[in-house]
């Protein structure tokens, strides 16, 4: 059963001081980066769209800190957190969002497609479900190449009702692929409560048995519990013991995307979840563990500075060269279709 396994793993994880601080710093980087991103979106500097993971940082931080540098992350359009959690720096990401030169993908992808292959951030996918089979393929590749790399694939509760979810889970188990599927159950699709469109209570955990998997559930707002679950499942995959499906129960503080205020959600529900904000919670844990207020404050100051620096770079960078609109369709760097 889920909770036992979690506790077991948690203690097994034996979290040391540095790791705890790293998790806190990662969550904070996500939070402050996204808060500023939202302000810049409302100010019209960030264009197109954004999907914020504010409130869900513990999932990204708990897993990101449990992965090896050469492991693979696959995530969704709600992917700022997961990209930052793999160590991609804020500036190229923000440049991508504002659409200036120096952007992570030259402005071609935008907020929904953040990718940094050198960091193992193998892409943010904007069609629900698509990246689950792709993650299986990366895991299969690692298995074939014998590199004991692991692929971790993050997706939402609503994604558990699409066909690709089913096909990917079944194939991953049949091939014993080293992949960990992480469902961030934030209770909503875009505006529709997941409960109203799903045949079972727990969108991911109640599907696990259909693939011969254990039902693993973790408190997605408790970064140390998430980290323990990450260690358990990532190590299992690395050992060659096959895939896992984890349901991390969490909540997004804001709306689905762009300027959505998220008013379709009951106030008490929102209030209750705001009270369970993973970041203050972890701060309290750190203090309780005897980590000095000053040390935590320093991390906070450094993170604020990093966000400010990224913003400065974003405001100063020039617009991209329109000629780049037709590059990189093919491996030769171009887009010629005639010969």
């Amino acid at each position: 059963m889920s909770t036992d396994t979690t506790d077991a793993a948690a203690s097994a994880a034996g979290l040391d001081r540095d790791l705890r601080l790293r998790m806190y710093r990662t969550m904070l980087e996500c939070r402050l980066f996204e808060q500023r991103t939202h302000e810049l979106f409302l100010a019209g500097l960030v264009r197109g769209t954004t999907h914020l993971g504010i409130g869900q940082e513990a999932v990204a931080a708990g897993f990101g800190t449990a992965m090896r540098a050469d492991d693979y992350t696959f995530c969704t359009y709600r992917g700022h957190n997961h990209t930052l959690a793999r160590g991609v720096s804020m500036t190229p990401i923000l440049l991508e969002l504002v659409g200036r030169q120096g952007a992570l993908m030259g402005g071609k992808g935008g907020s929904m497609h953040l990718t940094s292959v050198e960091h193992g951030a193998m892409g943010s996918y904007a069609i629900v479900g698509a990246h689950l089979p792709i993650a299986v393929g990366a895991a299969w590749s690692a298995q074939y190449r014998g590199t004991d790399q692991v692929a971790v694939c993050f997706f939402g509760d609503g994604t558990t009702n699409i066909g690709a979810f089913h096909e990917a889970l079944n194939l991953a188990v049949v091939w014993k692929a080293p992949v960990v599927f992480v469902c961030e159950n934030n209770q909503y699709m875009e505006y529709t409560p997941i409960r109203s469109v799903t045949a079972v209570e727990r969108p991911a955990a109640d599907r696990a048995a259909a693939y011969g998997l254990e039902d693993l559930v973790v408190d997605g707002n408790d970064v140390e519990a998430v980290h323990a679950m990450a260690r358990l499942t990532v190590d299992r995959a690395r050992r060659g013991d096959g895939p896992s499906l984890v349901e991390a129960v969490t909540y997004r503080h804001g709306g689905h995307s762009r300027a959505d205020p998220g008013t379709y959600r009951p106030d008490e529900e929102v209030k209750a979840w705001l009270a369970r904000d993973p970041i203050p919670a972890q701060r309290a844990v750190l203090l309780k563990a005897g980590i000095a207020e000053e040390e935590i404050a320093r991390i906070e100051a450094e993170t604020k500075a990093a966000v400010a620096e990224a913003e400065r770079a974003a405001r100063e960078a020039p617009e991209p060269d329109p000629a780049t609109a037709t590059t990189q369709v093919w491996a030769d760097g171009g887009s010629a279709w005639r010969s």
Partner: protein
Amino acid sequence: MAELTYRQAVARGIGQEMERDPNVVMLGEDIGAAGGVFKTTEGLLERFGPDRVRDTPISEQAIIGAAMGAAMTGLRPVAELMFSDFFGVAWDMVANQIAKTRYMTDGQVSLPLVIRTANGGGLRFGAQHSQSIENWAMAIPGLKVVAPSTPAEMVGLMAAAIRDPDPVIVCEHKALFADKDDVPDGELVEELGRGRVRRSGSDATVVALAAMVPRALAAAEALASEGIDLEVIDLRSLVPLDMSTVLASIEKTAHLFTVEENPRLCGWGAEVVSIAAEEAIYALDGPVVRITTPHVPLAANPVLEDAQMPSPERIASTIRTTLEASR
């Protein structure tokens, strides 16, 4: 007469038909309580209730498949695919099932259904949320395809699509949702398969669709000041395809241009040009040029996306240069 946005016109057209026929039902993601992510179905849940306006899981194959099963058993479903790019996950249902079943059963099965979708670029959403897929559907026998360019026409063409006894894909262009227009009161029903001459002229025929229509008209205004007089045709419907209007215009102008948002290869313009090359070759007095997005995915960055999609400037300069060269 009421001023409506293109977005409101969608709900007006659907609402008009739901009032008229209790067998018209809707299904899709976030279309009910939320009124649609583009607010195109706002108010319909309140007016017609949850039995007729059904929110679904994120299951496009099930949405389109369910629409088909309902259509073959007496209902007239109006299904939404939130973004037209999502035709990808339901393409079997659309291209292999819905388009072919009437034919395969020799007419035993009728499929009076509509699939509405937010189509096209310009919103900086990037390659997976900006495509023009009208050509995907046009290439499949058994599908009708409509792409209105104004609020008033949206109402009448939506109504015509819902009343049509065959499957119709209605492309709602994202970049037009905020456009305003005076829409007559009372019931509006257009006929499918009629293009519309939006500007008559004598020097060249310019055929456009959806968001490219205002851009073609802007180019025409610019060239008018230079003494170049363009005839601009809004195709409005790709299947049925109103070639008689296009061919009649070519007889008059002897020059043909298309303005297409889709990537370069195999767009609706290629079909229009090819028909002209067979049926009007002797009337043509110079190169026929398609003004399209290059054959690349659309970028999210505004500078890059603007460089990709046909702009009034690119339309005007292409036409100017071509006409000058063929003098």
